[in-house]
């Protein structure tokens, strides 16, 4: 019997403890309809690669949605974005993910 049923990212994130910060620590420099995410980014590596599924593309709204509460603070998104459109700083002291094993 296999018990690793925690196969989806959502289920994996559900195992984590977070202390939700008072404000977002991730921002898109340009978040509107004119953003490169909408018009110029073909692969949207933030959406496909982010290990915590923070980024999602909203086809109808033509924008990238940022679920910053899920962030596990790896920092990859800043480097992944081909248009340098992601501003990812650290949450304020003590907030954000808190690993129990690490």
């Amino acid at each position, binding site marked *: *019997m*296999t*018990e*690793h049923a*925690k*196969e989806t*990212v959502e289920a*994996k*994130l559900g*195992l*984590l403890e977070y*202390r939700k910060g008072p404000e977002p620590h991730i921002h898109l420099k340009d978040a509107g309809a004119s953003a490169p995410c909408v018009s110029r980014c073909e*692969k949207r*590596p933030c959406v*496909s*690669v*982010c*290990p*915590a*599924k923070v980024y999602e593309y909203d086809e109808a709204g033509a924008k990238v949605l940022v679920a910053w509460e899920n962030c*596990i*603070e*790896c*920092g*990859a998104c*800043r*480097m*992944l974005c081909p248009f*340098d459109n992601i501003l990812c*700083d*650290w*949450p*304020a*002291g*003590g907030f*954000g*993910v*808190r*690993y*129990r*094993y*690490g």
Partner: protein
Amino acid sequence: MPDFDAIVVGAGPAGTSAALTLARRGLKTVLLERGEYPGAKNVQGAVLYGRMLHDIVPEFWKDPDCPLERPVVEQRTVLTHGEDSVGFSYKSRRFLEGVPNAYTLIRVRFDRWYAKQAEAAGAELYAGVTVRELLKDGTRVVGVKTSEGDELTASVVLACDGVNSLLAQKAGLRPELKPEEVALGAKEVLELPSERIEERFALEKGEGATIEYFGSVTQGMLGYGFLYTNKDSLSLGVGCRLSDYQRTGLRPSEHLEALKKHPAVRRLIEGAKTLEYSAHLIPEGGLRSMPPLARDGLLVAGDAAQMINPAFREGSNLAMTAGRLAAEAAVEAKAQGDFSEKTLSSYVEKLRGCYLLPDLEETKDLEERIAAVPDFLEFYPGLACALARLRFTVDGRPKKEHLREALGLLRKRGFLRMARELWPLRKAAL
């Protein structure tokens, strides 16, 4: 007068080693950690080599409170090709003699214990403090500013704030890292009773094994998988170049799921329950991505300074050595009353005089050379599996035909080409 002699940013292996050393030598030291507790933001495989910690906390393994998991007696390397695999294993209880060679760890537990050692030595630890920027007087670093707006001043700041080192960036020491310069690692801690671990990995009670997986498990990306035995859990992870994940669009958590299903992994983790999922960047740019290590009033150590030797699975040991040596340079600077770049640069000399910089110098081109052969991690594990299959197959053909077939496989690639492609690996061999 500044508030402190030294401010250390980040309570990981580099920062805690630095703070401990500084405090012991009588410097007024503060250790700032953005996590709610030391380790809260830290992720590692984790294997810790004993020697470099022993240099700082002698005979740490005799401290019953030190949260070590298992001393490593067996290290396996497994090359995968499709569902096949061929492996190499070295097992020796000599790893346990004297200073034990390596332990597996749960980083959060270890980091909390280690930070307590620094506190016991006299360092002031403040967790839950995010440093937002450096305070400067001209070009000289004179302190830090926290996310709460507090300003702390010191004669020297030690940036031990990890791979992302926003401080090194804000100090203008280096630009943002590129996706080619980092690996993205994802890991799960899987709960499994200790007796079952010992049965599955053929271990004596309490002893540990590590496995690294190369080849098809990385799905054409530069990187590897790993499986380490903890006391009553396993650490299973993958780490590949971020630029490769960018290219493939593969999500690391899904990559990890695929690794779980490989026959060389599946039965070892069967029935184990996932306790935690984590992800972290690994600074693998090596020497060429290394920022300047000393400036007026500033030193950089550990992941923040790209001190990782992926060819030998080393990192936290480098961080500990660098933290200790940075602290020693700061102690000397204090004695001279001079915290200029020139004085603090004795840190770089110390790094050059030990194993750290020479090792990074040796392996600086290794990843580049492997990446330059796009099918390296596909072809060679495949070749190894093919040769092993021929060697172990009894099919009624004379052995001479097996040998001819094997030589045919080698000739197809070309001996010269293979020699050229494999030559850089000598630096990862010994």
